[in-house]
């Protein structure tokens, strides 16, 4: 077992430095893309793209060229293809995703079968190895990551609106169709460039899990991005550290860490806590049951409006206020999250 001191010594090694930077970058792009993948409900689509990328890698190795080229070709083509089927509504997405998913696995196995001898490269693509990123791949990773981040943050408000309500985005004149394809390509590229480091089987966790953990904490999109990035980078860095210290496979250590963060977030999520907003004492708006105060209104909707009650105790909204019905007047303050 290595010690922390060994780790810092190892950081003198360019390979290790590259691994560290790769980990941070994948942590960032995965968690950024992941926010919209999660909100748009495209998780299985991403999974299918990851498998097509694996088939691409197998073909690249079979042909003896840099797998990254074939990975990108396969990933982007399948993303656009699925997007097309989705747009034309020929059939439900989950059907086409299911078909494509398994077809690419079949292709991958076919390509592996055609190889004259068993290749260790296949093993490393499947399970990933962050310590053996070639310098060319490293440079491509950095360049494409910058492109991805510029596009996602540059078009953040458009993607956000499309995610919220794509019909309204279309009517407002936002090029929804184009942006949907663009986003599919961004997912594909993110997966493709992370593939070698994290491995085809695990790569998608870098996209889903940090965003899913961030989702548990906030109702604000910017905060969700920030948290997602923090979770992604944290698990990438510490995953790499732990894998070094205890000689564990890097990809699975990183993914296990994000999953742990997700589990903790899920358990502690303020969204799941029923009493996130505590009603003030008001006989009409809240009721104490078994020693705990509960809202009488489903979403505690009335709590932040000044309101009054009539004799029967009905909640009356501000717009309905009639001076002669004045009984009690008070304003509740919101004691929940984000205030």
């Amino acid at each position: 077992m290595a010690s922390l001191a060994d780790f810092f010594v190892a950081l003198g090694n360019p390979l290790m430095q590259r691994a560290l930077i790769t980990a941070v970058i994948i942590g960032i792009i995965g968690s950024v893309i992941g926010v919209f993948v999660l909100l748009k409900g495209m998780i299985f689509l991403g999974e299918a793209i990851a498998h097509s990328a694996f088939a691409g890698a197998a073909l690249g190795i079979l042909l003896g060229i840099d797998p990254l080229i074939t990975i990108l070709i396969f990933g982007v083509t399948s993303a656009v293809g699925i997007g097309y089927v989705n747009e034309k509504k020929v059939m439900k997405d989950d059907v086409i995703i299911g078909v494509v998913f398994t077809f690419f696995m079949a292709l991958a196995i076919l390509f592996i079968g055609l190889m004259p001898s068993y290749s260790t490269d296949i093993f490393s693509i499947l399970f990933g190895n962050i310590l053996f990123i070639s310098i060319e791949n490293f440079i491509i990773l950095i360049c494409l990551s910058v492109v991805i981040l510029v596009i996602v943050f540059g078009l953040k408000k458009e993607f956000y609106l499309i995610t919220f309500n794509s019909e309204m985005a279309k009517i407002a004149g936002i090029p929804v169709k184009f942006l949907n394809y663009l986003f599919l390509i961004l997912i594909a590229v993110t997966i493709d460039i992370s593939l070698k480091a994290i491995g085809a089987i695990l790569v998608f966790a870098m996209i889903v899990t940090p965003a899913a953990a961030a989702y548990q904490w906030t109702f604000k999109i910017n905060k969700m991005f920030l948290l997602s990035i923090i979770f992604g980078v944290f698990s990438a860095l510490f995953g790499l550290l732990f894998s070094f210290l205890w000689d564990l496979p890097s990809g699975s250590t990183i993914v296990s860490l994000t999953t742990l963060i997700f589990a903790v977030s899920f358990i502690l999520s303020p969204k799941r806590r029923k009493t996130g907003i505590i009603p003030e004492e008001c006989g009409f708006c809240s009721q104490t049951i078994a020693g705990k105060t509960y809202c009488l209104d489903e979403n505690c909707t009335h709590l932040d409006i000044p309101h009054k009650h009539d004799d029967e105790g009905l909640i009356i909204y501000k717009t309905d206020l009639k001076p002669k019905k004045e009984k009690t007047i008070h304003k509740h303050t919101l004691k929940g999250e984000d205030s």
Partner: protein
Amino acid sequence: MNVSKLDNQQSSCDDTVVCLTDINVVYGNYVALYNINLDIYKGEFIGICGPNGSGKTTLLKTIIGLVKPLTGEIKLYGDNISEKIPKEVRFKFGYVPQFAPYDKNFPATVKDVVEMGTYAKAGLFKRITDKDRNKAFEILKLVDMEHFVERPIGHLSGGQQQKIMIAQALAAEAEVLLLDEPTSALDFRMTEDVMELLDFLNHTHKITIVTINHNIKLLRAFTKRIICLNKMISYDGPTSDPNLDDVINKIFY
């Protein structure tokens, strides 16, 4: 029977905000709208009614360009939009879709949702300005929802969500609001609340309003002109016309 007042007034589309001429809309081999002629003038408050599947939603979507008609001509503010709706014209129309509750946990606050109305105008790769933000807040005040700024959208009641969607359209500086059953999911009090808001916007801010509603009593109370659809326009005229009852009896029963 076509009681459309347009029959004896073959229009020139002058001064209209929406002018449809001989519009036919089909889905596959199914006719959803047949031979629609319709003029909407600035400042009108129009109610659309008709049975389920009569093409009400399709009509609004056709006006706004979401559905392309098979034949016929659409003019918005006098501009023929058969090819593409020009930006300036598009921004004048706000559409509030049929109520669909949002995911309770979707990360968007009331403020975010209203500000979304300003996104399209700001343009790709640009941020919205403080001016846009202020405008959004002013509109929240206008619809009397400013107390909810920081509330997640999914934590509002259906009627409040509808008001926020109206606010979003107003933040986009819409002059014409097309609303698809804005009150269908609401109780009577919230229904009146939303209709009163529309009435206020129509009177005070001169917003042209076209709203689909199944409740003809409600439409009679708030609008001056009713259009009854049944693939064709079966009635288009004042709410007081006794003919209206006959038409309603005919198309609903």
